[in-house]
């Protein structure tokens, strides 16, 4: 019974939502809407569980005076402070201040470092060691050149070359990946619906 009930619930929920895609009947749509709304609530609750888990892990680290406990203290303090401001004063100036002067600059700084890594990696990776490397280099140079804001001013053929690279070889590859992913998703969905896979048990 422990297994049958969750399996039955999973199959029924999955079938209802799936049927809603193909059969636009109001009664099925109403049930599917309730189920989807429930999934949204569950996702929100997962966020809450994540916060609890984070606090638990770092709280233990601080309590045991383990290595890196200072960072744990900073994390817990920041989390609780932001949470308190966000819950007590949602959309307030204080929350905006935290976002504008702490979260935004930190994230932007981390991403900005990527520019340095990209250039350093370009120096090491863009070497014509093999024929494949030569093809990659020429394609990359073309795409980078067309990314120049004034690329069209340099040559009217640059955008044409870029469009060809993006729409023919790149799109072909991406289409293959998308189709493969879709087939994989279908197979996984079928396995769950047929209870071959039971990740929820």
């Amino acid at each position: 019974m422990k297994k049958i009930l969750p399996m039955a619930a999973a199959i029924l929920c999955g079938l209802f939502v799936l049927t809603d895609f193909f059969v636009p009947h109001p009664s099925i749509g109403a049930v599917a809407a309730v189920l989807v709304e429930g999934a949204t609530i569950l996702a929100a609750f997962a966020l809450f569980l994540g916060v609890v888990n984070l606090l638990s892990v770092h709280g233990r680290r601080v309590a045991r005076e383990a290595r890196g406990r200072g960072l744990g203290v900073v994390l817990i303090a920041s989390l609780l402070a932001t949470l308190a401001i966000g819950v007590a004063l949602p959309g307030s100036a204080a929350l905006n201040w935290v976002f504008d002067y702490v979260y935004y600059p930190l994230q932007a700084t981390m991403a900005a470092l990527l520019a340095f890594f990209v250039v350093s990696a370009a120096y090491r990776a863009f070497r014509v060691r093999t024929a494949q490397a030569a093809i990659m280099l020429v394609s990359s140079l073309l795409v980078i050149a067309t990314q120049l804001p004034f690329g069209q001013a340099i040559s009217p053929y640059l955008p044409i070359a870029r469009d060809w690279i993006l729409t023919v070889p790149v799109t072909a590859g991406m289409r293959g990946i998308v189709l493969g992913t879709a087939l994989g998703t279908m197979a996984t969905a079928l396995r769950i619906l047929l209870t071959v896979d039971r990740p929820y048990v």
Partner: protein
Amino acid sequence: MIVCPACNHRNPSDALVCEACGGSLEHFVYRACPSCGALNPAENVFCHRCFDDLVPGSAETIVEASDIPVESFVPSEPSVTDREEAVREAAAPPVGERPTSDLILEADAEVATTAEVVSEETEPGPLAEPQQLVGEPIERLEAAPSEPEAPMQPSELIPEAEEDVLEGLEGLVPIAAAATQAHAFALPVPPSVSETEQHDAELFHSIASERGPLRDAARVVIPRRARLLSRRGRALLYLLVLLAALTPVFTGDRTSLLLRPRDSVTSLARDIQSLPTGSAVLISFDYGPAYAGEVDPLALAVGRHLAASQVRVVAMSTDPGGVGLAEHLYRTIAGEMPDYRYGESYAILGYLPGPEAGLRTLCTSLGKAFKVDYVQRRTLSELPVMKDLTSVQDFDQVIVFADDSRSVRSWIEQVQSQCNFSLHALVTAAIEPMLLPYQQSGQLSTLIAAAHSAGEYEKASGMEEPSLHWTDAYGAFCLVLLVTAIATNVAYLRTRARQRSHGQ
């Protein structure tokens, strides 16, 4: 190929760090087995797979002399014999300063229990059971009867140290006195060997150690060191990146004069221009602050255009960081246009959790997805801007700013497939190729890589705003990349030509 010792990932032979875990591979040298080809650590004498000898003649040496030093196999793990010697050496200076009995009396039970640890590593003699020594005080160990064959008396092995003899020594078992006591007992005398047995053993040895006719000595595989960028070269590259970022300071807005809006950008600007006053657009800010530098200028340009066109805007996000970005952006626009008010001209609904399921809810009811708005915490029906807007189908256009292709795919698969509306994706340049199939199938009305598109959009919509400055830095960075790619190849080809000329 180098197999990472930490994660077993197979890396190219010139790798310096593991591609999977990032661990250093610089100090790993392998010996390829001549028989089976398996890669072994350089210090191995035998192949770990087929047990063939990797060093010529090592098998003979080992079998005949049986005295291969332990260091040859396990250099990092000192043997028990090494430990004894090291303890003796460490204990040497204080000898004579204090009598041995003092040391014995000061030894506590913890010291005695170390005998258990070490005695497990040593082979016990027939007369000494290690289990008998567990937890016994040192005095009893000293009094234990020793065999006449024992090479050393226990009193000789007890370290006579005033301080902790382990101090400053790494890799040693604490106070090895008990360990050496257990180890000191004599090994059993080997039984006598008959002539026939001796003959059989020699025959077995000759067969086992016979080398195949085609087997060569093991080949030492040394990972090729990739030529790293020198510190000066790296500093130069970083300086170029910095200069690229600072380009707008020096150049002003010159490159924007050369911009020509692409067809997709012109198409989006025309779509928004054609919207009648009072129509509604849903904008989803599905990107975080990390990519704000790339996407924000375009989002600002589109937001300004919508505001100038007096189109109602409802903003939301499926990224927790996106809500703050939307709030930040609309604060800027509202500051520029006094008549552009929250609740009347625009509203921010907030973060929508549950990527696929959350988006599905938009098809049926916005009120179920968002109970209250993000800024004023009012129900959606109370906001004038939400008039006649109950689901995503009621919007004239939907624009998604994204830094993750999964987000746009969720919009297409979960929302647009059900509700059938015009969807525009304005994304980072990195994910543009991943969404091209959706554009070609017509599911995306517009697909624009943000990057320098803000300048193009502002030109296409006839606006002149400061975001045009971004194009200078972007163009300069592209130039730095181009120059770097060309410079590295010039250096590489010159090095190859020099090596060839030396080879000839």
